[in-house]
């Protein structure tokens, strides 16, 4: 089957999740990837949204983190303070799936402002749950569309800690969780270099090139020694994703999230 670069991105992100993961899900691109994983290779994955919906099995992608669908299909729904205190801070979550307006080579995320904080060029929504998801989950995966405005050499505002501004601050601050372990885009998959924590390209999606990746990255991007080609989406993966998006579009009466 033919597929789009957005579909390739969502499929590549979904594949990183395991059947036994307890996953804290961000809205938008992460939500699509996490639910695709649940509908394909990881039927027993536990999906948790910050609205307090625990082990939720939505039939459609929610527009917001608190859609009725999430509560109606959850094992249980807990108060929001409990969600952040017992389940997130308590160390129960294996992986957090995040996105942001800017990400740097060390996986630091900005979802607060573009430009100066006091006089921003663009005021973004802000942290939401992301700041503590980034430090309290066992590890984090990041998914963004690949362009030089998003993958930047330095984030304008550090909302959520990755490995720190030079790749070492996370450890120095005493944060015990692993931090960003993967960055998935519509062009490639990156993982942190073991020595420096810098995101390094490990696989490029079929039809995309090193030059495209380099041109669309705001830093001098490095490639690992053995860069592979990301396996194409299977018919099963594509079918499940398209059915999910179709159901979502019908339910919301608007274009589906990708």
């Amino acid at each position, binding site marked *: 089957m033919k597929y789009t670069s957005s579909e390739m991105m969502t499929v590549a992100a979904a594949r990183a999740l395991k059947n036994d993961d307890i996953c804290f899900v961000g809205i938008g691109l992460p939500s699509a990837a996490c639910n695709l994983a649940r509908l394909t290779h990881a039927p027993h994955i536990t999906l948790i949204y*910050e609205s*307090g919906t625990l082990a939720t099995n939505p039939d459609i992608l929610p527009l917001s983190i608190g859609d009725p669908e999430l509560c109606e299909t959850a094992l249980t729904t807990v108060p929001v303070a409990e969600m952040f205190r017992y389940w997130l801070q308590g160390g129960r979550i294996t992986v957090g799936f995040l996105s942001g307006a800017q990400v740097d080579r060390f996986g630091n995320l900005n979802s607060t402002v573009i430009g100066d904080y006091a006089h921003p060029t663009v005021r973004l929504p802000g942290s939401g749950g992301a700041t503590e998801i980034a430090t309290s989950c066992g590890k984090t995966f990041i998914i963004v569309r690949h362009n030089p405005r998003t993958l930047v050499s330095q984030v304008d505002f550090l909302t959520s800690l990755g490995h720190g501004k030079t790749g070492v601050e996370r450890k120095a601050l005493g944060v015990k969780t692993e931090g960003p372990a993967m960055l998935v885009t519509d062009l490639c998959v990156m993982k942190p270099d073991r020595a420096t924590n810098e995101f390094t390209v490990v696989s490029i999606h079929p039809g995309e090139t090193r030059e495209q990746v380099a041109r669309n990255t705001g830093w001098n991007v490095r490639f690992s020694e053995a860069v592979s080609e990301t396996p194409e989406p299977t018919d099963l993966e594509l079918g499940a994703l398209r059915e999910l998006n179709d159901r979502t579009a019908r339910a919301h009466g608007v274009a589906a999230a990708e």
Partner: protein
Amino acid sequence: MAEILKLSDAIARFVNDGDTIAMEGFTHLIPFAAGHELIRQSRRNLTLIRMTPDILYDQMIGMGMVRKLVFSWGGNPGVGSLHRLRDAIENGWPQQIEIEEHSHAAMANAYEAGAAGMPCAIFRGYQGSDLARVNPNIRSVTCPFTGEQLASVPSIRPDLAIIHAQKADRDGNVLVEGIVGVQKEAVLASRRAIATVEEIVDKLDTHSPNAVVLPSWTLSAVAEVPGGPHPSYTHGFYARDNSFYVAWDAISRDRNTFLEWMNTNVLASSPEAFAQRPPHRQVEMTA
């Protein structure tokens, strides 16, 4: 004991200019009808607290009622920006607005600390985040037992909390179900509290002995306003009107379009109009 009042009377009696107000509801049960009544009664100079200021606070900010906003995520969920909030921060329209910005974890902890009568909340958070650099209310404490540096923020103690819920009985005891958010904490943290409900019934008929029930004596007033959270929703009654959240983007983008919409659908309207608004019984709203 809560008094059972008309919404307009409850707002007139328990809301003052200059109040610090928390109108909570985590996507679910957002008290829109009460907010619109505040707009009609033109309360001014308010400090608004809310984890997720979505369309309701966008409307109140755009109407020039808000001096300061305390929040942790200010967007239109799944759609994009809050244009009135952005216009206030980026351009000072219709007036400058002060912001105090947190993360969700911090605000949830701060509500809980407020309900618990504590001066501050302590939690593990804000590590490495620039939020601590721009918000002087984000500080740290050292654990007296382990020496660990922990984040601390002041507890939230509003003058007034406003929530929406499924039902109240005739004594004013209120049942909240579904995504319960931080409503219980917000009510218990506040000096005064108002709840709007879908219906007032003889008996709450809770399905579990652990249901979230706010006793009448924790509230100042209860008002029956069916449909009151539209375009948000009430679990067990009707679904979220996602198409309105999408439509708000265009309505709110332009100052004049926004003001016209507010004139027609808020200033010239009433709490009773909400009964017709949930998706399953929707009449045409002027866009």
